């Protein structure tokens, strides 16, 4: 069997307006469940996925921050890109538990990945 590959998943879209965050989640847990090493990074508008207090009941959709909060249970690591948080006038204080990374740490994650899959 070939050595385990590392896949970096970049999630760049707001929850709810596009299916991107939800579909990205399915790929994250799907690939992690198949034994691939997954680093999932929320960046740009994707950082809103990590914001606590979401209530999409008025949209008839499932809440996403709580499912992303459980990614570690599937063996995937979750990262939030702090420059994207600051640019949007948000604060990490209101976010689910995750690893906070800056541009340099994101570059390192890219360099350490075999493949990068973007959900934009």
């Amino acid at each position, binding site marked *: 069997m070939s050595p385990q590959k590392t896949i970096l998943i*970049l999630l*760049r879209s707001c929850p709810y307006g596009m299916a991107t965050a939800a579909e990205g989640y399915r790929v994250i847990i799907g690939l992690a469940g198949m034994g691939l090493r997954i680093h999932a990074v929320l*960046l*740009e508008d994707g950082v809103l996925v990590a914001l606590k207090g979401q209530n999409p009941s008025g949209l008839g959709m499932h809440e996403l921050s709580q499912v992303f909060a459980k990614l570690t249970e599937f063996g995937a690591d979750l990262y939030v890109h702090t*420059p994207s948080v600051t640019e949007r006038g948000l604060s990490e204080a209101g976010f689910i538990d995750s690893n906070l990374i800056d*541009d340099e740490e*994101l*570059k390192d994650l*890219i*360099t350490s*990945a*075999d*493949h*990068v899959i*973007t959900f*934009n």
Partner: protein
Amino acid sequence: MDNLYLVTRSTFERTAWRLALRLAQSGDTICFIQDAVLAVKGPLELRDKMAELESKGVDLRFLAEDLNARSLNASREKTVDYEGLVELIEKASRIIT
């Protein structure tokens, strides 16, 4: 070459190009395809940064077929056709869209 960034959406309408500019390092290539070939026209902020990136050793390329389709032009040395794009894909360690 290390990373190949492929930017697909209009550089005026969408900000996806900012990620490529933010992360690209010496040895990387940013290739503008589809509507992103509008990058030859700007916005101004992007055009300023392009010169900066090139001085850092980041290569910038524009896909000829997408330029031609939109009646846009880039300098010859910065233009690649699909054959050239495929060579960039072959050479890259990873591709980031």
